[in-house]
């Protein structure tokens, strides 16, 4: 026993002396492991959290979702929204000490547009060409006006990577990513950790107070919280709503949340193959009745402990894009019954496919009993996620429960879902008027014009309801009391600029 004690003391002493006294290490617990660490190829949400620390973007978004400068200090639209010119920040360096200039931006954007493995092509689809207009000035020429481009450049499509590293590593860039963010890549062990350290030449280094960041994927939220409580982690993302009260009551922890920009909805197969031939797919009155039969407010209180908000549009009621003239409906069983009767039904059989996770199952069982009172006989068909996605795309479903993680620009939360040829339009809803409104909203850089178009589309969509929106979850974080300076952002990212960890 004595020997063990001596050994541990010696080891502890060794570790303590090896580290400089001032090194501040922040350990963050993520829900999943990130995929490839290449902004051009990346797909996962947690990957974006890691990039927030590692890869700066041309522009960033503020907590109220406004586009703000990051690598670009200034920008302007011209030629009727077909040309975007950006001025770059001076003196910015990549982690490999090469300078970030207009040529580097052009190389990155071209890489995103042309590399076979790139997942950024559709996000940059409107870009005709990109060129250096000066050493620190970049000019984007578009095929047609695209107001969403700035929002795309505030995410992975706008993360500028070192041309030197990109050339050397090619599609293998993710094995040793080199960007221009506050932290640089150190190592990664799959499903175990991603380690970053402070980049000494970062342009905004005076506001970085952390020396080393470790991201650890821990899928189980209870275990993630236990690791925070035991002191093995400093910060966790996506705390389960059921644990919110425990964190708020813990004097050693700080709680933070914000309603996110995504949504929870139920897809109704209105035109995707033979199975669109179902009562709810054929008659909008039944979809309206289904929507009215739900008590969304109660649902959010019960399942999400009040951390989620009820909704009936792709944007949460707190968003500037929400159409206030189409409020979230109150539960009205009598009206729902009347609509069902009007549609010629007494009881309506419905099959809903749902992913097999406990929170969704609980949500849907509550909905099942709520709508039963109005006259819907709901069968829940629980499937594993990859299968659900497959069935949904192929149209082998009547109703399907689906989540959307949300995009900064409103277009990303609506256009691809409900326009006739939208990439994520699994309901195969098609309405020329909606297409026209949403295309016009996309083309205008005038926010007032865009708002007017989205409002008009919301009225039609709320009447036809190819997607029945349920509400909007919150991002919930928990951290140790000594971690300060964190600003919750509706995009769910963990920004480390300004974040401090006391002793």
């Amino acid at each position, binding site marked *: 026993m004595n020997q063990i004690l001596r050994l541990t003391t010696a080891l502890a002493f060794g570790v303590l002396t090896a580290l400089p006294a001032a090194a501040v290490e922040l350990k963050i617990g993520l829900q999943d492991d990130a995929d490839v660490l290449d902004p051009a190829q990346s*797909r996962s949400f947690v990957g974006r959290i890691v990039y927030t620390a590692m890869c700066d973007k041309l522009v960033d978004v503020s907590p109220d979702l406004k586009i703000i400068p990051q690598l670009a200090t200034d920008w302007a639209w011209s030629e009727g929204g077909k040309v975007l010119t950006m001025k770059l920040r001076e003196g910015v360096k990549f982690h490999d000490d090469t300078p970030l200039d207009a040529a580097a931006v052009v190389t990155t954007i071209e890489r995103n547009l042309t590399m076979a493995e790139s997942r950024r092509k559709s996000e940059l689809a409107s870009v005709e060409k990109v060129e250096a207009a000066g050493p620190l000035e970049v000019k984007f020429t578009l095929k047609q006006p695209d107001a969403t481009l700035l929002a795309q450049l505030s995410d992975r499509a706008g993360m500028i990577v070192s041309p030197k590293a990109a050339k050397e590593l090619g599609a293998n860039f*993710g094995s040793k990513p080199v960007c221009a963010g506050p932290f640089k890549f150190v190592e990664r062990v*799959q499903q175990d950790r991603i380690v970053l350290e402070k980049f000494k030449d970062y342009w905004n280094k005076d506001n970085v107070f952390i020396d080393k960041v470790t991201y650890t994927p821990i899928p189980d939220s209870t275990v993630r919280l236990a690791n925070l409580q035991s002191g*093995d982690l400093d910060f966790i993302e996506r705390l389960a709503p059921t644990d919110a009260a425990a964190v708020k009551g813990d004097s050693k922890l700080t709680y933070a949340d914000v309603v996110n920009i995504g949504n929870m909805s139920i897809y109704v197969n209105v035109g995707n193959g033979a199975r669109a031939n179902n009562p709810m797919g054929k008659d909008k009155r039944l979809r309206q009745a289904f929507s009215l039969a739900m008590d969304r407010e109660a649902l959010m209180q019960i399942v999400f402990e009040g951390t989620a908000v009820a909704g009936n549009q792709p944007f949460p009621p707190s968003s500037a894009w929400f159409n206030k003239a189409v409020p979230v409906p109150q539960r009205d069983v009598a009206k729902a019954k009347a609509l069902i009767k009007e549609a010629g039904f007494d009881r309506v059989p419905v099959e809903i496919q749902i992913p097999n996770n406990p929170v969704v199952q609980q949500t849907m069982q509550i909905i099942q009993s709520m709508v039963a009172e109005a006259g819907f006989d709901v069968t829940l068909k629980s499937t*594993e996620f990859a299968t659900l996605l497959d069935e949904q*795309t192929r149209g082998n479903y009547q109703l399907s429960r689906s989540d959307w993680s949300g995009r900064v620009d409103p277009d990303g939360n609506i256009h691809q879902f409900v326009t006739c040829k939208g*990439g994520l339009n699994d309901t195969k809803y098609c309405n020329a008027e909606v297409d026209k409104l949403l295309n016009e909203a996309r083309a205008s850089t005038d926010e007032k014009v865009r708002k007017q178009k989205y409002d008009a589309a919301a009225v039609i969509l709320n009447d036809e309801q190819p997607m029945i929106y349920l509400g909007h979850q919150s991002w919930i974080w928990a951290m140790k009391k000594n971690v300060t300076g964190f600003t919750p952002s509706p995009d769910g990212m963990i920004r480390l600029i300004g974040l401090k960890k006391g002793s």
Partner: protein
Amino acid sequence: MVQMPVYIGKRLLVAIPTLLIISIFVFSLQKLLPGDPIMAMAGEERDPAVLEQLREKYHLNDPIPLQYVRWLGGVAQGDLGVSLRTNQPVLELIGQKLPVTIQLAIMSMFFAVIIGVPMGILAAVKKNTILDYIANLVALSGLSVPNFWLGIMLILLISVNLGWLPASGFESIFVDPVRSIQTMLMPSFVLGTGLAATLMRHTRSAMLGVLSSDYIRTARAKGLSPREVILSHSFRNALLPVVTLSALLFGELLAGAVLTEQIFTVPGFGKLIVDAVFNRDYAVVQGVVMCTAVGFIVMNLAADILYVLLNPRLRATL
């Protein structure tokens, strides 16, 4: 004993068709699963042109038999393919996870054996006494308590309340042996208790069988001490089924312990294969299953060899 190498060689040759059959089986089962790996991988970003390009790149549009032959050709040259999700070579992934899984398996077996075997012997020797009942109760609890529950309870008690051990994570034994053992203690204990129950039951019944045989009565009649009768005469003979069982249990551990790994975030085979199945990451699933199958076959062989070493009578049958 001269025949031993020949025997091992023969057994390994027989293993080849077994592995082939397993590989065909796993390959076809995966293809029967609904869901498209490229789609699962794309998640929210489904750009049809990119999806098609990726399908081409990974030859997912080819007929399934052709895909299988291509895979087999790669394996023959030591190439297990790349993970669709992370672009990492499967062999490299297995190389990262296998040491973790082996360490977890060894430590779990350690707990299983030091708890299960003595309890089994005790229960058999003190048959139908209070000690026997207690051992049975402990064994039954070990079997019935779900791993994930025990795991979370241990984390809450030992890490959160007492702060004795890290709640989860992993460190390589070659980098920091102390921390490595610390992080593995709870997961291996959780896994070990479940296995200890099985071992205890089998040790007990094997011991009971031996204890009632004639030569034990003779040994007792000769006036040998109970300790000698139990440990030298009975236990050695009772050990045979226990060894087989331990080897099989060890083989099972090599397949990864999904729930335990998930709870304690141990980056081993279990988590790797579950994630791979959910993402339809065919090459990874295939690689891990094959690796596990090899592990199983080796453990079986090890059990048979140990058998012979323990039981001289079997040497003649080689």
